[in-house]
C-alpha cells in the first residue's frame, strides 16, 4: 500500500559554484504520510533547509536539483511545469519560514498578505476573503482579529508575526506544511505557544508537517520520525523514541552529549563537545564524512563511505560500526 503523502527518493541538490560543486543535499530519501510529523535535525550547513526548498522548488541559483524524485500524492514535483507547481505551492504544500521579521512584507497590511494567498488559489471575492482572514487570525490565536488585521507587521511582536506567517501557511488548508526553524527566532515561552498551535492545527485539519530544526528538544516534543543530517547526507533515520533512547550514529550521540543537561537534575559535569568543525562541502574528506570528528573512527572509515542501512528493525544508520563485511 502506498499511503505516503510525500515521498522523496534519492534527492540530489547541488550548488554549482565557481569553486566547485557543493552537494548540499546528497541522495536523501524520506516519506511522510498524512498527519505525520517528520523532523529533520542537523547543524547549520547540513542541508536541511535546502531539502525543504527543493520540495517547494524554491532553491535559489546556482542551486539545481540534479537528481531524484519528489512524489507528492504520486506526482513528481521535479518534472511538472512551473505553472502546475504554482498551483500547488501555498495551496497544497505551504511553508513557514524561520524569520517572522523578514517573511512578511513590511509595506502591506497583515490582512492583505493573508488574503493574497486566498485570492490566488481559491477564486473568492475580496469580501469573502476578508471574512476568512478574520477567521484565520482567530484560529491562530490572535486576540481581536478584526482590529489586528489592519496592522502592519512592525506593529506586532515576534510571536504575533509568526502567528500571521502560520495563518498564511494554513489559509488554503494544505496537506503538507514545511516548517523551517519555525521557532528559532522566538523566546522560549513564545516557542511553546507556537509549537502547541502547530500541533493543534495538525490535529484539527489533519495536515502533515515536515519540521526542520537544529533543536533536539523541539524534535523530541513534536516529531514522530526523525532524520539526522550531516554534510548533505542522512546519517540516521529512526522513530523519535528509538532515536532518543538508542542513538546509534556517533554524530547523533555527540549532539546529545553537547547539550547541557535538560532533564531535571543537577548535571553540571563537563560537557563532551564534538571536537573540530563541520568540513566545507567543497572539501569533504574521503570515506565517512564524519571521520575527522568521530571518536570511534578506524581505517575503513577513511577509505570508504558507509551506506545508510538498517541493522535492526527500521532504525537506519550510516556508519561502519554497525555494518558487516
Amino acid at each position, binding site marked *: 500500500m502506498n499511503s505516503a503523502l510525500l515521498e522523496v527518493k534519492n534527492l540530489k541538490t547541488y550548488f554549482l559554484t565557481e569553486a566547485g560543486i557543493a552537494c548540499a543535499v546528497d541522495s536523501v530519501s524520506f516519506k511522510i504520510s498524512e498527519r505525520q510529523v517528520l523532523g529533520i535535525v542537523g547543524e547549520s550547513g547540513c542541508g536541511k533547509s535546502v531539502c525543504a526548498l527543493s520540495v517547494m522548488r524554491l532553491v535559489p541559483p546556482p542551486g539545481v536539483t540534479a537528481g531524484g524524485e519528489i512524489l507528492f500524492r504520486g506526482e513528481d514535483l521535479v518534472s511538472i511545469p512551473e505553472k502546475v507547481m504554482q498551483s500547488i505551492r501555498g495551496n497544497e504544500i505551504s511553508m513557514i519560514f524561520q524569520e517572522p521579521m523578514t517573511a512578511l512584507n513590511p509595506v502591506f497590511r497583515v490582512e492583505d498578505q493573508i488574503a493574497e494567498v486566498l485570492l490566488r488559489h481559491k477564486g473568492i471575492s475580496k469580501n469573502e476573503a476578508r471574512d476568512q482572514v478574520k477567521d484565520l487570525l482567530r484560529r491562530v490565536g490572535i486576540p481581536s482579529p478584526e482590529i489586528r488585521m489592519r496592522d502592519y507587521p512592525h506593529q506586532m511582536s515576534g510571536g504575533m508575526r509568526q502567528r500571521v506567517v502560520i495563518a498564511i501557511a494554513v489559509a488554503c488548508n494544505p496537506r503538507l506544511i514545511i516548517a523551517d526553524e519555525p521557532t528559532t527566532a522566538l523566546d522560549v515561552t513564545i516557542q511553546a505557544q507556537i509549537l502547541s498551535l502547530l500541533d493543534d492545527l495538525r490535529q484539527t485539519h489533519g495536515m502533515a508537517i515536515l519540521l526542520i530544526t537544529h533543536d533536539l528538544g523541539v524534535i523530541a516534543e513534536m516529531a514522530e520520525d526523525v532524520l539526522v543530517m550531516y554534510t548533505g547526507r542522512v546519517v540516521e533515520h529512526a522513530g523519535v523514541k528509538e532515536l532518543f533512547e538508542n542513538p546509534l550514529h556517533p554524530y547523533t550521540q555527540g549532539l546529545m552529549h553537547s547539550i*547541557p543537561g535538560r532533564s531535571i537534575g*543537577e548535571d553540571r559535569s563537563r560537557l563532551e563537545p564534538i571536537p573540530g568543525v563541520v568540513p566545507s562541502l567543497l572539501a569533504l574528506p574521503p570515506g565517512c564524512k564524519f571521520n575527522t570528528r568521530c571518536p570511534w573512527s578506524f581505517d575503513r572509515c577513511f577509505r570508504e563511505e558507509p551506506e545508510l542501512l538498517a541493522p535492526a528493525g527500521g532504525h537506519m544508520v550510516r556508519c561502519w560500526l554497525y555494518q558487516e563485511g
Partner: protein
Amino acid sequence: MLQGPEFLRISGVKKYYPITEGLFRREIGTVKAVDGVDLEIDRGKTLGLVGESGCGKSTLGRVILGLEPPTEGRVLFDGQDLASVRGEELHQVRRRMQIIFQDPYSSLNPRQTVGRIIGEGLVIHNIGTPVEQKERVRQIMEVVGLRPEQINRYPHEFSGGQRQRIGIARALALHPELVICDEPLSALDVSIQAQVINLLKDLQQEFNLTYLFISHDLSVVRHISDRVAVMYLGQVVELAEAVELFRNPGHPYTRALLEAIPLLDPNLPKKRWAGRMETSGPVLPEFCIFQPRCAQSKPECEKTAPELQEISPGHWVKCLAYNPLSSRV
C-alpha cells in the same frame, strides 16, 4: 588579602529611555529598560542573568561596563563607584572589565587582522612594546585554542566557533577581572556551543575570572552559573543559587520559563501552553509587571506592588504569593 565588600555591587540601577514624538522631540513617555536592579557578584563567581528578549538584560550589562550611564543607582566595582571616577582612573578601571559579544560575525572588524583585533586593547592601554604586544597576542590565542600562526588572518577565514574564540581572546588580552558575556553562544551550533562553554569554564578557573553571563537559554545558564537572576521587563523577579532556582522555582514567570523548555525526552507528555499571550506595547502594569500574563494572578496583584522577599536563605522572589501579609488573607 582583604576580602572587603562584594567584587561587583549594583544597587538600585535604573535605565530609562525617553519616547519622543514630533518635530521638537517632545517627551511622551519613558521606556523602563532597567527598573531598579540590585545585584552582587563575588570574585571568581558566575552570575547568570536570564530573561527573554527586551527584558533589559543586555542594557544592564552595558550599564555595568559604563557604556551607558544609569538614570539612577550606583555600580560599585571592587569598591569603586563607576560614576565618580574620571580620566586616567576610569581608563584603568575599564581595563579590568571586558565584554564578549553575542554575534561573532558582526563584532569583529572584517578589515583588521586577528592579531590587530586581539591586540587593540593592549595598544589603547599602552601595555608593552609592539614586540611584547604581539607576543601576548600569540600567547592568548594559544590559551583560547587558536593557532598562533593564524595571527595575520582576517575574521572571514574563520568559522563561527573560532570567531567567538577571537572575541574571547580580545576580551582576555588585558587580563580583566570581570567579563560580561552577552549571549556568547546564541549564534553557534550546539556542538560548538559545548566547546565554548568548556573553554569559558576553564578560563575562569585559570584566571579567577568573574562572569556576568547574560543568556536567554536556561539550560546553558544552569550549567555555567553559581547564582542566577531572572529578569522580566527590567526587573529582577527571582534570584537564587543555580541549583536551588532550577529545583524550586518560586516566581510564576520562572516556572513558566522552565516549563516552556522542550525536554529531550519524547516519552514526556507534550507541552500545553497554559499561560496567557504575550503583552504588546510599552505600557506596563502599575503593580506586578507579570500580572497580565500570570496564570496564578489574584485580585490583589492589581492593587499591590510585590517586593523581593527572601523565601529561603539566599533565594529571593518578587511575587505577592510570598508576601507574609497577603498569605494571611
